[in-house]
């Protein structure tokens, strides 16, 4: 039999039917929904008088529009309040479980799926959200879809899809002290570009990837889309199985043993062919920070900001000029030393317990700089509870940070948390697009260590100096 990649194996197992000339009909094992990209899909179902085919394979939560300050409810913004209420009524009408405001399982959709054990190896997972790639950390084929496709999955539990290309991302070595999974993925995106992965699914492999925890793997897979790849995954191994064992939705007893046997067969076969590949050495990496307005515009924290004069292509040069103009940064100077106004620790990229522990390493016994506002926003209720059980919230509060309720918060600035025009924010989120954190706001993407260090120093600083 021809050796297959993990992507081939998951794909082949989910093809419902394929007709000549048409895309394959792909079965979806888990459909996650949230308040922002689903209302128009439910309207479509009602217009056509359709039911949700598999409410048991569908799960909803609120994250984008939900306040992270107390009281969470009632929501002061009437437009957001209506959107959240509509998700709850849609779920009630169609029989979909919904972890709404106040529910102990509420949180960012890409944080709760994994922590509840809903996301499992070999699954197909979709959500009307581009960061669905996060779930690939478990060896699932997980990708973001638009609202028309949300409606399609609600109605049929299937999607029409062309088989994606496979792209092997091999990472040798191991991360040095103070260098994190976030730095690894930023380095990859900078290396291959914002469209380097378009049309492909990344498979992250190699010793450095094997050495990552599940949470770190989620950070890496999460940002696959920032290099254009709709999905990115890691073959499951003992780290995966240990993480999943005993989670609320994980298989139990004999079913666990059967699942384990299935999951162990998912890894890519020796000699399988990929359509593309790239290699990195984790040992060469340093803490990364972005200087521009897409995540590929990232450099090692001590490196100078690139000079547009060195770029031959006029359109690419103009794009860099526009980015530096927006960011107010000078070519040739490093980002390190830049005064910052806000630091944000949270999001589906870096809002898990491991991320908060990292931030606490820096913040313990230190104070947030008087000129800086630090928001620490846990990715879910469960993360918040865990952090409080470990006393991390005390470290954050004593340092002068704002300890928040779970949600997307300042990553997307839909819920009232936002930057003022011109403010600089070192952020553990995933996008530094113009205005992403608020109109005119300027985002510098980095790891939780780097964000916490900037909050203390009041300027961008290499976090290794504080470890």
């Amino acid at each position: 039999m021809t050796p297959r990649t993990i992507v081939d194996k998951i794909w082949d197992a989910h093809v419902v039917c394929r007709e000549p000339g048409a895309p394959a009909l792909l079965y979806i094992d888990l459909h996650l929904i949230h308040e922002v990209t689903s209302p128009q899909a439910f309207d479509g179902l009602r217009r056509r008088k359709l039911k949700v085919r598999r409410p048991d394979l569908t799960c909803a939560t609120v994250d984008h529009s939900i306040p992270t300050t107390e009281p969470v409810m009632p929501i002061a913004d009437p437009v957001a309040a209506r959107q959240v209420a509509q998700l709850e009524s849609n779920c009630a009408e169609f029989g979909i479980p919904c972890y709404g405001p106040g529910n102990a399982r509420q949180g960012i959709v890409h944080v709760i799926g994994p922590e509840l054990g809903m996301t499992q190896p070999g699954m197909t997972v979709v959500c009307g959200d581009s960061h669905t790639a996060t779930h690939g950390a478990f060896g699932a084929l997980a990708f973001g879809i638009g609202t028309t496709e949300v409606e399609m999955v609600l109605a049929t539990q299937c999607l029409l899809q062309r088989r994606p290309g496979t792209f092997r991302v091999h990472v040798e070595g191991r991360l040095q002290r103070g260098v994190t999974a976030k730095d690894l993925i930023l380095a990859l995106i900078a290396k291959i570009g914002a469209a380097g992965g378009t049309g492909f699914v990344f498979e992250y492999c190699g010793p450095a990837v094997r050495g990552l925890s599940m949470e770190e793997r989620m950070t890496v897979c999460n940002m696959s889309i920032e290099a254009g790849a709709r999905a990115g995954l890691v073959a499951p191994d003992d780290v995966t199985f240990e993480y999943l064992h005993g989670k609320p939705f994980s298989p139990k007893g004999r079913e666990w043993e059967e699942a384990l046997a299935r999951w162990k067969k998912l890894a890519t076969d020796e000699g399988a062919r990929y359509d593309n590949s790239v290699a990195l050495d984790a040992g060469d990496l340093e803490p990364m920070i972005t200087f521009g307005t897409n995540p590929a515009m990232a450099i090692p924290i001590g490196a100078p900001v690139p000079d547009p004069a060195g770029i031959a292509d006029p359109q690419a040069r103009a794009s860099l000029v526009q980015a530096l103009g927006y960011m107010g940064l000078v070519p040739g100077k490093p980002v390190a030393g830049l005064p910052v106004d806000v630091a944000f620790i949270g999001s589906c990229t870096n809002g898990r317990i491991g991320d908060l522990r990292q931030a606490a390493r820096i913040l313990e016994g230190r104070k947030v700089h008087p000129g800086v506002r630090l928001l620490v926003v846990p990715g879910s209720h469960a993360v918040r509870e865990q952090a409080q059980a470990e006393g991390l919230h005390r470290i954050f509060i004593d340092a002068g940070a704002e300890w928040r309720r779970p949600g997307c918060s300042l990553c997307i600035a839909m819920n009232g948390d936002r930057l003022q025009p011109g403010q600089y924010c070192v952020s553990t989120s995933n996008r530094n697009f113009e205005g992403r954190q608020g109109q005119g706001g300027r985002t510098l993407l980095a790891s939780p260590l780097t964000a916490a260090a900037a909050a203390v120093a009041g300027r961008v600083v290499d976090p290794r100096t504080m470890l």
Partner: protein
Amino acid sequence: MNKFERFESTVVVLAIDNIDTDQIIPARFLKTVSKEGLGERLFCDWRYDARGNPVPDFALNRPRARDARVLLAGDNFGCGSSREHAVWALIQFGFRAVISTSFADIFRQNALKNFLLPIQVAPDVHERLASALRLDPDARVIVDLEQSTLQLPDGAKVGFPIDGFARQCLLEGIDELGYVLSRESAIAAYEAKLFR
């Protein structure tokens, strides 16, 4: 029924690389529960100043943009978020096609499902069109999906790639959800095997 027909149009030029969906429609407008009213927010933060007045030299604010149905954009158009609101906003403004050297995957899918045609061209064709429009900003192109060609202002026709199934759906107005719903027996058979 919606069908994609051949048309001729002027072109709005926004030749910036990596235009993300946050620029096309900023997230603060995604709290809506409908598809309406997004066209006036299209490219909001580039199109209007802090007081909400139109920025006069922004391409979409020029009088000729009013009737244009084609947008010429830079590489990797539509990257970032999966928000279909970006496509709805482009459609509501009046666009029927976007020309670029490449598109983000999710944007491309969303566009095709809303009868907005992503036309991918080689960099030299992109530059040829851009320079023709620099000389004559009112120059017109003809989009012909039946032939899968784009006719440039100089009369030359260039082909563009398009998924055969997507092309058929656009030309014949095929409803994809209806198509999949009619495969009910195959889906039921798959589920019977999976959940036996």
